[in-house]
């Protein structure tokens, strides 16, 4: 309950500061712009268009959810997986190369993405477990290495005239994730695939794994105190590596859910690591570090990011929604403080009520 309140507070404050920034840039359209960002697909007047763009938001929510699960899973084991971004990149590279370069069907591409992400995560895990390299630093290095690696790899399957990779439709339609009629629900949005329900299933699996299984218990114990876990006979080195591999696999799968839907092509001249993995950090913390909470927080963050695309370009830039989500991540740092003070406030109120009751009772006793 407190987590939910604290998260809502973060969102409200983030939007408020975003609104102030808009006001500073151009007061005339600020209210309209912030409404546009919050409305997102409701911006369209017709129901069919709304449904279709709702579908588009969902398509991009799936990878974000996977990235946030990746961050969350590692965080529960005491590791900060800032490498979700790189694992996402390498997942994109593996799935697209399998699809476009080798013509493999979608399930192989999906597995390849998971495997590639897991390997990258495991590298960080091994470095952490055996060479005492801080996982944050090694992940950051691997983010950049994988970006340049994937750019070089996918140059082999890019269109000659543009920096973008071939479309799946024209090269290998088998690699597109099956829709199973889900697309029809969103006024024939062909990008809506089984990826969306699949990611929700995965988040439930992560919740079960973390809270209901022996392995999850061991992993969390390792996160709480590595030495205590070791003393109890848990293999703490194996647990660290396994955690990073699972986290990496989750992020890699996230990339496959987006790129195998055909929604986007990879741009081989990218010079910055895609923000998806970093936004995953925001979604994980905003969701109160709970896999189920992540579903909602991921959707919210993608919702405002997509909404940013509709603001009036003559006044503002689309990056305003990046600004708002960055603010929300920043404010998430204060969640612990919010929670503590909220708890303190509730305790105080409880105490007051109790003492008030006692007083009333003693007064009653005095009268009798």
């Amino acid at each position: 309950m407190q987590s939910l309140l604290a998260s809502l507070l973060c969102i409200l404050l983030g939007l408020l500061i975003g609104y102030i920034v808009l006001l500073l840039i151009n007061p005339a359209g600020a209210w309209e712009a912030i409404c546009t960002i919050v409305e997102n697909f409701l911006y369209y007047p017709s129901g069919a268009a709304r449904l279709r763009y709702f579908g588009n938001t969902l398509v991009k929510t799936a990878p974000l959810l996977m990235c946030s699960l990746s961050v969350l899973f590692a965080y529960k084991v005491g590791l900060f997986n800032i490498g979700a971004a790189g694992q996402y990149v390498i997942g994109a590279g593996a799935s697209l190369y399998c699809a476009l370069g080798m013509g493999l069907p979608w399930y192989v591409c999906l597995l390849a993405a998971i495997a590639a992400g897991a390997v990258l995560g495991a590298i960080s895990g091994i470095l952490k477990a055996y060479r005492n390299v801080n996982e944050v630093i090694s992940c950051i290095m691997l983010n950049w290495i994988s970006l340049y690696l994937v750019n070089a790899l996918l140059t082999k399957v890019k269109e000659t005239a543009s920096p973008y990779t071939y479309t799946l439709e024209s090269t290998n339609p088998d690699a597109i994730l099956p829709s199973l009629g889900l697309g029809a629900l969103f006024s024939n949005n062909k990008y809506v695939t089984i990826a969306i329900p699949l990611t929700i299933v995965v988040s439930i699996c992560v919740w079960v794994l973390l809270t209901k299984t022996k392995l999850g218990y061991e992993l969390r114990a390792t996160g709480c105190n590595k030495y205590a876990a070791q003393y109890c006979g848990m293999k703490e080195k194996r647990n660290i590596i396994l955690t990073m591999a699972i986290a990496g696999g989750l992020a890699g799968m996230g990339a496959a859910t987006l790129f195998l839907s055909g929604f986007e092509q990879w741009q081989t001249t990218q010079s910055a690591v895609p923000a998806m993995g970093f936004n995953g950090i925001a979604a994980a913390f905003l969701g109160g570090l709970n896999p189920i909470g992540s579903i909602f927080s991921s959707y919210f963050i993608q919702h405002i990011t997509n909404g940013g695309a509709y603001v009036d370009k003559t006044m503002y830039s689309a990056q305003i929604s990046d600004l708002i989500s960055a603010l929300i991540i920043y404010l998430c740092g204060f969640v612990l403080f919010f929670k503590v003070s909220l708890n303190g406030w509730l305790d105080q109120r409880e105490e007051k009520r109790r003492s008030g009751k006692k007083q009333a009772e003693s007064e009653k006793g005095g009268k009798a």
Partner: protein
Amino acid sequence: MLLLLQYTLIFASVLLLVALGGCFSEHSGVINIGLEGIMVMGALGGALMMKFLPEGSPAFQVVLLTVLASILLGTIYSLLLAVAAINFRADQTLVGTAMNLLGTAAATVFVKAMNTSADPDNVSSTIQYLEGRKAFLVNIGGFEFNWCMLLAVIALVIAYVVLYKTRFGLRLCACGEHPQAADSVGINVYRMRYAGVLISGVLGGLGGIVYIIAGVSEWKFENGVAGFGFLALAVMIFGQWKPTRIALAALLFGFFRALGNVYSGFDLLSSLNLPSSVYNMLPYIISLVVLAFTSQKSRAPKAEGIPYDKGQR
């Protein structure tokens, strides 16, 4: 060859400045992952100053004001980390990550808004500073000497003296090793940590402006500073949190970074016919390998990353 030397020195200056910033912050006990964002902000401040200074200002004035502007913006921005990490005991890695995203996003939004209001058709996030950049450069027989190289050397000397030879520096290090002990002898840990983070803001901001004038005369702020803040962190760790070693590490990393810029000028390297992404990857791969061999005996400040709580034993 001269070009390689020039690029090596200028990139090494950037890495040295920023890594020294990180070094101060970590010695006070606060992990500063947000150096990347601080660099962007510093770069923004300096670029704006160069853009708006009247044409024909004396070179010394341009250099001074530009450096001051970037320092100012970098320092103000680092307050975000200081407040969150010191007063509100926030997760330092999380806040730093947020600052990196925020820095690029805020700079992009700001520059785009500025460009669009000046010219409605201009929606780019680019600032040009051709004139301002010239003020920093002195041509010595084909070698472009940049005043920032001197600044970096001065910063190194000052950092060394401050950290090891002054009361302030030793107290700062105490706060990063064992804040409770420092507090017990009357050192104000909160104030020391503020000092550490703000110094990292000064040096990070300075590093930002040096980076964007290193090789080009216009900067697209959508790109941020392309991971240089992170590279500086690796330099700091490789340098084992010691200024002199950091300087050597910065030279090494600067060399590999410069190689990516100028490799096509060498017959031997261009005949290898490697894709340019190999050279881009090189600094990161080397730092990863180096870290794998040096982290076992890590000399990191003991209390870094742990929020200081007066009430805790």
